[in-house]
């Protein structure tokens, strides 16, 4: 376990010093939130009997930032490390493989929690979106289960990425359309029901719904804050990702 912490410490250093990871994982969601709030801030969204747009976008962009810190960041950084030969080099040491993976997953989950704090704070200070302190356990539980599942999916996805250059296009080609279709970029009430049914076939929509339920109180407050049904579907996706990762993950470079 102390070896996992050791690995995690150096992963953290490398993460925060890498301008690409800081921009795409940390800055990009913040910028998105500012843009959506600025453009649509005065409108309302017709969910839960009508809520402010900003109240909608804070949990939506937190959802995106969690997926970005986990699936996107892991898939890209692991492919780069694999093609650099760094994963292969690590396999030549006594460090067990699971320690390395656990360090990376820990790194992603910690960054995801930081993004939760950062975006919740910005939403609260700039747009008056209440931070639901009383629902914090449900929020953190939902986030951690989602983060773990999307980590597994990200690790599995590396098997489908042949080179460093292909990493960003493949990851974005998967995620960007699903953000639109799942109601992350465009509020639910403006999406045709057919689109939402389609998005329901993928994990992003379910994670977003679960996180939204945890973050935004139902009418009159209270109500179930953990959306177990949606979380279960996200978890199943995570397990599928894990199985694929165990079967197909490569430590050695594909190119040569």
């Amino acid at each position, binding site marked *: 376990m102390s070896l996992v912490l050791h690995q995690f410490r150096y992963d953290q250093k490398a993460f925060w010093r890498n301008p690409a990871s800081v921009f795409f994982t940390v800055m990009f969601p913040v910028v998105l939130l500012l843009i959506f709030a600025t453009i649509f801030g005065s409108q309302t969204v017709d969910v839960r009997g009508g809520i402010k747009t900003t109240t909608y976008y804070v949990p939506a962009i937190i959802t995106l930032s969690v997926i970005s810190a986990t699936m996107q960041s892991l898939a890209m950084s692991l492919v780069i490390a694999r093609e650099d*030969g760094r994963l*292969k080099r690590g396999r030549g040491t006594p460090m067990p493989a699971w320690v390395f993976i656990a360090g990376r997953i820990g790194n992603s989950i910690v960054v995801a929690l930081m993004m939760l704090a950062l975006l919740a704070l910005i939403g609260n200070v700039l747009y008056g979106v209440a931070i639901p302190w009383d629902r914090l356990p449900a929020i953190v539980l939902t986030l951690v289960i989602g983060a773990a599942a999307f980590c597994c999916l990200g690790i599995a996805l590396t098997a489908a990425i042949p080179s460093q250059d292909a990493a960003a296009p493949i990851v974005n080609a998967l995620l960007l359309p699903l953000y639109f279709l799942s109601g992350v970029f465009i509020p639910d009430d403006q999406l045709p029901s057919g689109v939402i049914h389609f998005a329901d076939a993928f994990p992003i929509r379910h994670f977003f719904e679960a996180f939204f339920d945890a973050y935004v109180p139902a009418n009159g407050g209270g109500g179930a804050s953990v959306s177990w049904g949606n979380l279960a579907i996200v978890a199943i996706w995570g397990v599928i990702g894990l199985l694929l990762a165990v079967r197909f993950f490569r430590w050695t470079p594909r190119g040569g």
Partner: protein
Amino acid sequence: MPDPVISIRGLTKSYGDNEAVRGIDLEVHAGEVFAFLGPNGAGKTTTVEILEGYRKRSGGEVAVLGEDPERAGGQWRERIGIVLQSCRLDPYLTVRESLELYAGYYASPRPVDEVVELVGLGGKADERTGKLSGGQQRRLDVGMALVGDPELLFLDEPTTGFDPQARRQAWEAIAGLRQLGKTVLLTTHYMDEAQQLADRVAIIAAGEIVARGTPEDLGDRDSQPTTISYRGPEGEVSLSTATPVQTLNELTGRALAEGFELQNLEVRRPTLEDIYLELTEQEVPPA
């Protein structure tokens, strides 16, 4: 005599119809620097990666530090260090941090500062690895392989693509390993590198060992004829002789007696390069 550090018998490796390694026998003993010399595609890396446990062999027997690399675990990995043929470093960690990260993987690592000095990166310890030159990065690769204080080091083409100065520096770092009493197996396609660094050399071509010995006596270089060439009254002359002292004596005696000069006089033993090219001529030598 103690057991060899590396022992290989009848090693073969095929990829489909392609036989990359075709029956290699080899022993490497403790404290020895052993070089695999051969052109690209000769099977050097395949062989070394089988010894490192990265690849499975098709046939034959292999023991490295008394264990079969295909089945060996963490205890065994404590005792070996690996420099891969091509491997980058995390560009956002410093030299010291990279070594500290790897030191943490081993039960009894060498002190990091000592390793930094050993590979000649004393002034660069707090530099990010992305800012190091190619030669400095390669020396850090050696440091990363060394930080676990292994008994046996694998160096796969440690200086390929380097400028002469970077090669010289990498050689110094590798020569330092000998002083630490490490056993080293290195691969290279540079003749001078094998000559400079190795106690023993095996030339490998098309998956087979075609010659082996010390750099001095490789391919019976001792008993090969010496070439003497000069320009005299008859024009350009080149003779091949097994008794160069006698031939030279006669030649200079005649030149003195008849009063002519032996211009461009050259006495040449076959170089390691000559032997190497002769033995590997079916292969295309690297550019």
